């Protein structure tokens, strides 16, 4: 499936002076304070920092799960702030895969059905969805567990199903919120390797929040969040870089 079809110089993700304020009871909370960041296709970016620093908020804004209080979010050059909820849903489905800390698999569906879900949301036929989901589950090494429901899978296996689900639409970008937080070290290492392999082989960009030092060691670009601001960016990219994306795969 082709995910981002526009051709041009636009970066995959661009945030311009993005702020995000919350109101928790009487107290205003400033989660992000004027963030500027650009992420190119095929990048592997870790967003790290202490709890409450704004990692998850940043991931949510990049993933169009949330809207900024001010500033602009662009996905592949398209401003998404003012898109309707339906348009954002469609764009999310086509462009972005999600991996959650708690795996967030649908418990009443099998591993295969969970992976088929994003394609079926996009309107793909069951046959096509099944075929592609099986491919993805094979890639993550779960071809023998396709019929298992999440409750019958280990944490590591569930997260691999979640990764397969995130990849099944061939998105340009996968956003992972603390993907190894609930895994033991062995499973965490396997998940990190899997994500790096996919990034290398498919060219899928990964943006993930993490506390996990093991994960950070494997990442070229590390963005440190501190008090709602970018404290440091180990390898910032610039919007001017030529990007040509013809599909999820390189």
């Amino acid at each position, binding site marked *: 499936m082709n995910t981002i079809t526009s051709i041009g110089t636009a970066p995959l993700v661009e945030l311009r002076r993005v702020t995000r304020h919350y109101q928790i009871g009487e107290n205003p909370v400033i989660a992000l304070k004027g963030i500027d960041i650009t992420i190119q296709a095929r990048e592997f970016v870790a967003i790290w920092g202490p709890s409450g620093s704004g990692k998850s908020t940043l991931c949510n804004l990049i*993933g169009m799960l*949330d809207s900024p209080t001010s500033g602009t979010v662009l996905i592949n050059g398209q401003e998404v702030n003012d898109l309707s909820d339906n348009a954002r849903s469609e764009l999310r489905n086509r462009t972005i895969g*999600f991996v959650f800390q708690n795996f*967030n698999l*649908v418990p009443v569906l099998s591993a295969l059905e969970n992976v088929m879900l994003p394609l079926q949301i996009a309107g793909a036929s069951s046959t096509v969805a099944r075929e592609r989901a099986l491919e993805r589950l094979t890639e993550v090494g779960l071809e023998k567990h396709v019929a298992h429901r999440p409750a019958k899978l280990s944490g590591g296996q569930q997260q691999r199903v979640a990764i397969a689900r995130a990849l099944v639409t061939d998105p340009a970008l996968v956003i992972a919120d603390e993907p190894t937080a609930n895994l033991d070290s062995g499973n965490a290492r396997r998940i990190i390797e899997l994500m790096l392999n996919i990034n290398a082989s498919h060219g899928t960009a990964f943006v993930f929040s993490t506390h996990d030092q093991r994960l950070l060691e494997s990442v070229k670009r590390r963005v440190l969040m501190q008090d709602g601001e970018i404290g440091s960016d180990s390898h910032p990219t610039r919007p001017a870089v030529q990007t040509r994306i013809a599909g999820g795969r390189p």
Partner: protein
Amino acid sequence: MITWFKLATRNLFRNGRRSLFTVMAIGLGFAAVNALGGFTAYIFTSLEDSYIHIQGNGHMSIFKKGFLNEGKLDPTRYLLNEEDVRVIDEVLQAHPEIRISTPELNISGLVSNGEVSTIFLASGRVSSKVDVIRSRSRTKVGNMQLFDGEPMSDETPNGLGMSQGLADQLRFKQGDTVVVMAPTVNGQINALDGQMLQTFNSPVEALEDKLMLVSLEFAQNLYDTTSVDRINVLLNDGLLTESMRATLQSELVARGLDIEIKTWNELSTFYTKVKNMFDVIFLFAFLIVFTIVVMSVVNTVGMAIMERTREIGTLRALGVKRRGIVGLFALESMLLGLFGSLVGVLLTLAVWSSIATLEPTWIPPQITRRIPLEVYLVPQEMLWSMLALLVLSLLAASLPARKAARMEIVGALGHV
């Protein structure tokens, strides 16, 4: 679509007990409405059949115009004479839709046992024709003998039947000679001897000590007339009542007769009153079921939304639109409605078959004999109930489902 159907179905089994209670609540509501509907249908059919067939009144009656309003004060002025009856018969016989017609003359006067006299009201009829009307009854009651003694017969024109209360009052028994007196149409007092053939129970309690049945010949002799006050008409198909009334009315008026035709439901005020009463009872029952179904579905869907908030967030993150979330919960609630209705169909069939097997009897108002109690199966009503419950379930779920769909995705994903 299959995926969403599968997902909705499986979601119902996540909290099986809760879904089961909701399905049972809907099923019991369905069964209650349809059992009541079946009983109501039995009552309506019985009342209709009782008036038309068992009481021998037919689907419609032809009167001289004004008889029903003015005729009570001066009945003899509003009688149909021999020529009128001949013309009416001619018109009626040209219609194959008419099964049979029969003249009737209602009389009143005094009945005496030689010592005591009391007033009576009697219908004078042609027994053989009334028997044909009765034989067309579709109910179990129609096959029952609703009198004690001998049947009325054309061969015994002086034979008469008497309501039990009147017979008791005058201490008459079967075979006794009864003296019947009444003023003729010319104002002379006339008296005839009749022979007591049967006793019966009046359909109206207030008339239990007044009603009699006589032959048309006896009634005409007593009134010294060859006229009648109505012609009762039985159709082959009751559904044609209204159209036949219009047709006959225009044809009879065209033949120069000043008549009016009343249908059975216009003449049977008891039927209309009972029907109105049962309609109100049915409405109450439906409102109770409506409340139960709405509350059950709202509770079930509301709880499901609360428990699956994170899942809703996940589905939204994966690209499901708001209307998709509404659709998913709507589908779940419709499945609840569907399963509940199917349970309801089974419960209704169980009630129906139990009653059909046990054959209970009862004494309904205005009948003094035990008659079979029935609950009819009304498939059309069951289908409508099913559709109504599906729509109701859908509507009940729509509000919480819309609320769920409008949740902030981030908030839903972070829900614990």
